[in-house]
């Protein structure tokens, strides 16, 4: 069922109204970068879990419907399986460490400790990214980048890429509907058959994509687009957003927290893994 409080973007769903929209897109990008980088300086999983909790609170405060996050569950599940499997199959072990053997599989505590640390870090990163794309429409991202002096050509290229992704998805739906209309029942197919059938979609989709890129090139010419004069180009989109006091305060806070975490990590190793409760639970591996 369609949620009236959320609206669709190419990259997911964003709330129709949210307190975060009071912030300039640049502030939102800086918040995203900070949320992405801070966990990299923290090895202790419990601290990163607190950080993850902060991201979830931000979701709530920003009025993002958490039910929409269900679509990302397969990504998180895949990530979990992939990380745990790789740390089991290719373990990181201390010299002379004795493994715990369960059903013939060797588990190393040091490897388990690191896998938990990396997993929580990546999970925080993934949730931070989802938060960014759940609170920013495509135009916000472009405005943010242009305000940060990213060249027009690069930001416009990103915009066109997003537009193309949207068209690709629309075309995909049309091709699927056309197949259904001709009696193809994907639901009755096995996973293997579905997998084999998937490349069949690619042929019409890529043909359409090539034709559309030609049409768009002609469309851009018709609109008088010239990349070489882009330095003096007026920017209407940017004029719709104002960098206010709230942005100055938010950026100050974000930078202050970032510096504090970096200093705490490099200065006194406050977030090192050997301080972690997980290390204690595993019998002080480090």
């Amino acid at each position, binding site marked *: 069922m369609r949620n009236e409080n959320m*609206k*669709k*973007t*190419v990259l997911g769903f964003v709330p129709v109204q949210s307190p975060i929209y009071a912030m300039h897109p640049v502030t939102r990008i800086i918040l995203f970068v900070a949320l992405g980088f801070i966990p990299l300086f923290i090895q202790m999983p419990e601290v990163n879990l607190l950080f993850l909790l902060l991201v979830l609170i931000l979701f709530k405060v920003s009025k993002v419907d958490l039910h929409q996050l269900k679509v990302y569950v397969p990504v998180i599940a895949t990530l979990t399986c992939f990380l745990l499997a790789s740390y089991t199959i290719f373990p990181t072990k201390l010299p002379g460490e004795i493994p715990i053997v369960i059903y013939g599989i060797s588990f190393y505590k040091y490897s388990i400790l690191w896998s938990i640390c990396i997993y929580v870090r990546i999970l925080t990163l993934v949730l931070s990214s989802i938060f960014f794309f759940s609170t920013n*429409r*495509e*135009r916000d991202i*472009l405005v943010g980048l242009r305000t940060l002096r990213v060249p027009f050509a690069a930001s416009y290229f990103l*915009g*066109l890429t*997003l*537009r193309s992704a*949207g*068209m690709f*998805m*629309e075309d995909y739906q049309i091709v699927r509907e056309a197949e259904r209309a001709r009696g193809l029942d994907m639901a009755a197919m096995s996973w293997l058959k579905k997998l084999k059938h998937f490349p069949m979609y690619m042929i019409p989709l890529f043909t359409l994509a090539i034709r*559309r890129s030609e*049409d*768009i*090139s*002609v*469309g*851009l*010419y*018709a*609109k*008088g*687009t*010239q990349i070489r*004069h882009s330095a*003096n*180009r*007026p*920017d*209407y*989109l940017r*004029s719709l957003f104002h960098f206010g006091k709230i942005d100055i305060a938010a950026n100050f806070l974000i930078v202050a927290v970032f510096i504090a975490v970096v200093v705490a990590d490099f200065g006194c190793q406050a977030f090192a893994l050997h301080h972690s409760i997980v290390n204690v639970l595993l019998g002080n591996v480090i």
Partner: protein
Amino acid sequence: MDAVTIKNLSWKYEQSSGFLFENLNLSVPENTFLGIIGSNESGKTSLVSCIKGIIPNIETGIYKGEVSLFGKAVKDMDSDLIAQTAGMVFSDPDAQFTTMSVEEEIAFGLENIGVSVEEIRERIQWVSKLTHLENLLDKPPYDLSGGQKQRVAIAAVLATHPKIMILDEPTSMLDPKSKDEVFDILQQIKRELKMTIIVVEHNIEKIAELSDAVLLMNKGKIIRYEETRTFFSAVDLLKENGLKVPESIELIYYLYDKYGVDTTAPVKFNEIAAEIQRLLRLNEEAV
């Protein structure tokens, strides 16, 4: 002054074996609503591409002769100067939507030609009111119907205040309701704005209704180019060139033949209805 002048134009696409146009000549007076009709592959889109400068500036091939817009040769004009003189709406509503919202899409063309931000704001307000897009400005392309997207394309062109507006089969990918929306907008533009409008269209009834002049193409040649009433008087010629003449026009010529009237028939629906009533009245009086 002529808005469009084509002198001895010959054009051959790089991949094709022969010339599509050979020594083509055409003049379109300023502020004319010109309808271009013809069967598929007759050269309609190529003709308007020449007027817009897509040929030869984007398409490759052999180009001879000259196409001028208000006296300036298009092959010597920059794309931004052409965009200020002649705007173009294409048939595929998706392929011309290159940004992520309606407002941005209208602003994009204006930014390209260097209009100031304040002026862009004013023009967006004006054009969105004219094309009934006020409530859609915030919408992304995937939230719009085909008809709405085509209205956005028309609005984006109108906002640049071009002297010439070209529409290449603007309704070919739309459902009947959306087609009507587009034609209503065209009618409104014709009524309220002074500009040259060139429309390539298969819907001959609508062309007859809206156009000041009509041009028929076949196999790269201009078969007939006349003021609308005169154009439709050659019913047999139009049929020979694969066109389906509107039944209302055929009917009135049938009645003219029957009652021995020798004149050019009206082509607009209301005028046709009034003329039929007049003919029937004359017939009753004669009886």
